[in-house]
């Protein structure tokens, strides 16, 4: 009998462990918030389903009318991450995207939702892809302190914009009209436009210099925008950030434009 009860106990414990592991995958952790996928599902059906679809595959009823297309969560490839290209995002990356929205897309800022609700949505979005149960997110990229912008830095950035072939898509003037621009598609084959840097100081994954630096390191997965992680040094990325800032005709802070004009 003791053997039998031991076996039952072992089975019970393994079921419990499996339950816990599965349960963990149904959660999100953002700061001290713990998101719950079950609650997230109800919120998803209220706010998200009409674009991202019932199955999270980006095929909601409004998807046909949107450009760029809504994200397909089943692929677990996300534009805005703090993790290297090809790795899963952190929960906080998804949370930040929901909070921030994605400029120049159909995705609005969901900041008016409760912090808890946004964490719940993160937990539910993660259930659409098994990757979140099979893999761990990548290690977040390091962002070193920003050197002050200077004429030299902008000049170097301008040269990198040329040598790194940024212009092929974003165009010589950063207008998003480079020779390869018309050929671009997202990972699902839908046409996608390269970002027009002259449209203003607002970007897809955040508007600070640090956000732009991070975008250069991580790339925007699911889009043609690659990672420049190994291709450039930290200083070179800051040079690129400083240069790209000068392309914006609506650069509100103006500090870089002044340097350039000197």
């Amino acid at each position, binding site marked *: 009998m003791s053997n039998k009860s031991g076996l039952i106990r072992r089975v019970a414990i393994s079921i419990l462990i499996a339950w816990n592991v599965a349960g963990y995958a149904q959660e999100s952790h953002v700061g001290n918030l713990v998101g719950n996928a079950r609650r997230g599902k*109800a919120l998803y*059906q*209220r*706010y998200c*389903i*009409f*674009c991202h679809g019932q199955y999270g595959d980006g095929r*909601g*009823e*409004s*998807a046909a*009318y*949107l450009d760029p297309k809504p994200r397909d969560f089943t692929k677990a490839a996300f534009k805005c991450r703090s993790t290297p290209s090809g790795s899963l995002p952190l929960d906080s990356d998804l949370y930040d995207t929901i909070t921030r*929205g*994605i*400029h*120049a*897309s*159909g*995705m*609005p*800022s*969901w*900041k*008016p*939702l*409760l*912090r*808890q609700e946004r964490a719940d949505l993160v937990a539910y979005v993660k259930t659409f892809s098994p990757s979140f149960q099979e893999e761990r997110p990548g290690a977040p990229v390091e962002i070193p302190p920003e050197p002050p912008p200077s004429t030299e830095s902008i000049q170097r950035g301008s040269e990198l914009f040329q040598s790194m072939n940024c212009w092929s898509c974003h165009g010589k003037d950063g207008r998003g009209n480079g020779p390869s621009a018309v050929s671009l598609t997202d990972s699902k084959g839908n046409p996608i436009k390269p970002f027009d840097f002259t*449209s203003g100081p*607002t970007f897809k994954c955040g508007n600070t210099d640090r956000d732009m630096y991070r975008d250069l390191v991580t790339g925007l997965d699911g889009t043609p925008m690659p990672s420049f992680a190994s291709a450039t040094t930290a200083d070179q990325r800051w040079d690129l950030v400083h240069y790209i800032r000068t392309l914006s005709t609506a650069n*509100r802070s103006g500090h870089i434009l002044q340097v350039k004009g000197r």
Partner: protein
Amino acid sequence: MPIRKSIVLEFLMLGALLGITENAHCIPAFARKYGLPCSACHEAWPMLNNFGQTFKDNGYQLGNGRDAPIYQDPGYWPIMFRTTPFWHRENNNRQGVDSIPGSAASGLIERNVTTSGFDLGGVDFIAAGTLYKNISVFVQPFIGNSSVTLSQAWARLDNLAGSRWLNLKMGKFELDEPISQERSLLLNNTGALYYNYFFNPPGDRNLFGGIGLPQLGIEVSGHSANDYTRYSVAMVSSNSGATGLPTNQTYDVYANVNQAFEVPRLGMQQVGVYAYWGQSPTYFQTAGGTPLPGTGTGNESFYRVGAYGHWFVKRFDFYTFYLHGYDNVFLGNGVPANQASTLPVGALAPVWNGGFVEGHYNPTPRWVFISKYELTRMSRQANPLLPPKLGNLDTWTVGYRWYPIMSTRAGLAWTQEYSHIANVGAAPVSHLDEIRDSYLMGFDFDF
């Protein structure tokens, strides 16, 4: 002249005017523009959730760089209509009627009167959206069963100086009420109104129709990114929203401030305060004894102040609302300010308090259950001869709305409501309490 006011007074004192609140809105024009369903902006349309309130406060903009009309198909025309076919039954336990029907001279008696049947509440058209980035507009003609009115029409400069804390609106607009009269979830005859928004004491001659009416003027407003902190200050002409300058030339001021907090495991909790201070004329310049519109003078002041809260307990939420009202003694007694000697002996400025609790249970975006209890209490009558409780009212309502379709194109709700109101001393002959009951069921749809 103050048509609106008389309508409201009639509504409050005698009841039985239908369709006055048939101008609430969920706006499929926005849903179509952004591909979002009604449920994104409405807890249950037409009642907004915080996301929808933020969208509205942003000048009908999501702020994702896709708001300007240039991003729309050139054929897009931001217009929607809403209407409500329904069946209803109304009962008044002490309706004043002629004792011999058709004979005005036969004398008024009280009868229990019941009416019922299929009915319509008119059609709302709403054209709203952005003319350009950060310029929003709203035009709302209402086709009633016998008239066409312009419920609202305004333009707003949004995010002035790049700040969401500075927005300027001008035109005829709904005041930034604690809970929007325009977005009441209820449609029935006695339960749809927030009586406190329209209440004036018995015998009062204040021409102000109440904070529940759209007003003509300008409004400065602002809000935080998540809309947890909001303010608005409006300066409006003392015409109670009526066009053509019918009353006087003074201006009233309305202000509303609220602050919300996120409480773990419960949800959003919001508190706010509001105040309306205004002036109303007590007599007019006349020509041949006929008052000249816009020449109202002998302006006397009145105010409505209060506080409110909106409390969430998961999928339940409650509004609590308190109002304190004051009308000047001349307004309260309906005496021109230049004839102080005709004031009744011991006349005082009327003072009253009121409030309501409205609860919603919103288990899914498809269902909302509504209950409301509202009261007003006179604390001081203008004329000491009046019964102290005259004007007090108690009303409760229960109902639900079911949204069988969830779409980014249109909205349809099935609604059933029951409402009960008791007006103290309002029976025309016996001066006993007048009790009215209202039942409504029907479709509420917009496209």
